[in-house]
């Protein structure tokens, strides 16, 4: 037996250890890495919220951590205690976006005794389980960081962490959900092979790679050259997870019907185009809306002129992204009589991201398409009249395809172009419906379950050997 270990990050020295044991089939221990007075040690008094009985901010944070540890612990089986070194600290954020947290293994291992697949890197926690003992006694297995500034004016203003345990987070960000997500990365839900460069870690593939399959190259990541992995990492919605446990449970989790823009005329543009779904308005569903696509001559941020209103009335409006929020554009088109809206991205990249925002008065469907697709489709619009064009579409679903899976029912991974460091390859694609815990962004409708039929996180870990 050859024992190989690679340290991925330096453990904090002098960390205050505060073990929290989950009463479950696996024991997850939280190591409080915060200094006195901050993070988990913040003594600011708080009122109980949503079943969280802590009386200080730090206590409530730790109780939320214990809740997440309990949920994962009840799901996993291991005789070896899993140790998570956790801190709450300032992470990247702006007034409108924030890194909620990050996590990964502190060490990875290969070729230990009992390893199911030699010559592949395993995350520390799963390596311990498979080895049957702690390969690295005294050292944490997972490093996790969470944003301590969330909700402050320059950090996703108005959306702080919700510390309750009952998922009633309203417009706040549910901390337990974020913890479950980040613990998932630490437990195995992340690739050790570099998705940006395609480089393997120290010349060996990770356990992730045999399951990561590219539909364009018809190879998994282990079978590819480094250059092929690099291109696969940005092959939007063309990379799927082939593990049997995930695939078997996928029909019970994902909804049948994949949103898409089907062009039905003209003949030279026929086909299905990728869309990013909207978080407001009616969900794209069968039979969808069918009609003629008509562009407008403005950014759509003001009520439409008579000419633009005439163009979109009873038609599907094509509006460029930019200047104002998506809901404003869609509402203006709706007010002018449009039956649907296509937002054309204004920056290159694929697949199209979703459309954020909220406006309960929006009643027509809308979706985003890529800049490249928009440019292509516009060729059919030059010869339009004021009221009609040659571009006929259906904004609806492929009824035979699970939302977020390929036509063979395998869940798609998040592989946007350009590459998103920290997100690409190690998440499910954002098109998954219902929403999954391990998508790159936290959706408001997630439960605290990591199992089918609510979620596929545990199924993927099972594929990896958990």
């Amino acid at each position, binding site marked *: 037996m050859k024992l190989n270990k690679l340290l991925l990050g330096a453990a904090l020295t002098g960390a205050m250890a505060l073990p929290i044991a989950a009463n479950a089939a696996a024991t997850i221990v939280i190591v409080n890495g915060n200094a006195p007075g901050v993070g988990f040690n913040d003594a600011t008094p708080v009122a109980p919220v949503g079943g969280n009985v802590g009386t200080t901010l730090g206590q409530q944070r730790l109780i939320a951590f214990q809740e997440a540890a309990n949920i994962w612990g009840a799901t996993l089986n291991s005789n070896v205690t899993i140790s998570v070194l956790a801190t709450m600290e300032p992470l990247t954020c702006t007034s409108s976006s924030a890194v909620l947290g990050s996590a990964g293994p502190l060490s990875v291992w290969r070729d230990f005794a009992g390893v199911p697949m030699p010559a592949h890197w395993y995350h520390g926690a799963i390596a311990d389980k498979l080895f049957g003992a702690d390969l690295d006694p005294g050292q944490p297995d997972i490093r996790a960081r969470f944003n301590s500034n969330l909700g402050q004016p320059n950090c996703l203003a108005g959306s702080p962490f919700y510390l309750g345990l009952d998922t009633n987070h309203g417009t706040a960000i549910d901390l337990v959900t974020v913890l479950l997500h980040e613990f998932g990365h630490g437990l195995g839900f992340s690739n050790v092979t570099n998705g940006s460069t395609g480089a393997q870690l120290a010349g060996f593939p990770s356990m992730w790679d045999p399951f990561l399959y590219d539909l364009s190259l018809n190879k998994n990541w282990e079978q590819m050259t480094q250059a092929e992995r690099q291109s696969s990492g940005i092959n939007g919605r063309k990379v799927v997870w082939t593990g049997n446990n995930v695939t078997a449970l996928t029909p019970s989790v994902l909804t049948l019907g994949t949103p898409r823009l089907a062009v039905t005329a003209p003949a030279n543009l026929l086909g299905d185009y990728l869309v990013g779904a909207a978080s407001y308005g009616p969900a794209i569903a069968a039979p969808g809306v069918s009609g*003629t696509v008509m562009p407008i001559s403005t950014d759509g941020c003001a009520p439409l002129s008579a000419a633009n209103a005439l163009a979109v009335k009873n038609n599907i409006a094509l509006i460029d992204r930019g200047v104002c929020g998506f809901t404003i554009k869609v509402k203006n088109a709706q007010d002018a009589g449009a039956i649907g809206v296509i937002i054309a991205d204004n920056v290159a990249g694929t697949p199209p991201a979703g459309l954020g925002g909220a406006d309960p008065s929006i009643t027509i469907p809308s979706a985003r398409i890529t800049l490249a697709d928009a440019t292509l489709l516009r060729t059919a619009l030059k*010869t*339009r*009249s*004021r*009221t009609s*064009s040659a571009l006929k579409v259906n904004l609806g679903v492929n009824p035979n395809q699970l939302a977020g899976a390929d036509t063979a029912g395998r869940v798609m991974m998040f592989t946007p172009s350009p590459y998103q460091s920290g997100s690409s390859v190690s998440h499910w694609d954002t098109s998954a419906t219902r929403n999954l815990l391990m998508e790159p962004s936290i959706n408001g409708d997630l439960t605290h379950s990591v199992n089918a039929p609510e979620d596929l996180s545990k199924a993927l870990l099972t594929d990896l050997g958990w």
Partner: protein
Amino acid sequence: MKALSIAAALLLASGVAQADPIFTEDFDDITTLAGDGWALINNSTAGGQTSWFQGNDGVFSAYEGSDNSYIAANFLNAGAGGQISNWLITPLLTLNEASYLTFYTRRNDSEFFDSLEVRFTTSDSINVGSSANDVGDFTSMGMVEVLLAGADYPLDWVQVRVTFGDIGFGNGRIALRYVVDNTDLNGDYIGIDSLTVGVPEPTSLAVLGLGVFGLLAARRRARV
């Protein structure tokens, strides 16, 4: 196979023997026009996204033939707020005083109005000037003008007929000119199909004079 409209035939019933057309164009494929001697000149300011283009059956279908077998122009001939002057000029033709031009045209249904002129020059010229206001060699005494404009522009395919009379003798070119003054306020989409130039026997033309034209309401025909 094309059929002349009954209305047009009635106009000719004043003793003029019907002759075979000397020239026909059905606009089945407008990429062949230049090779056949046509000139397509978009003099609009500022320049737009389009010039004359193959008909778009997503707006309306051709008078006859396959759905897109007509030639069309639209408000995008000029940029936003621009002035459209878009010329479609026939090859050089030899005419007599009995010669006539027929074509079918229609517009799209909106309050953004289009206009179309028919002009003529008695030379082998395609000089239309250099700006949207210019008409070049198409403005002299040789001009025959049909102006379809505003709400009078038909909403369904209608045959337009132009006769040339005395000015038709000799060589010349006929121009169809799509004109819009300001694309912020006017201009939509027009189509032109089944253009014919005929030269009947010039013996009994007493009833036809200079500049006589007919715009006759023809019902839309089933496509062949």
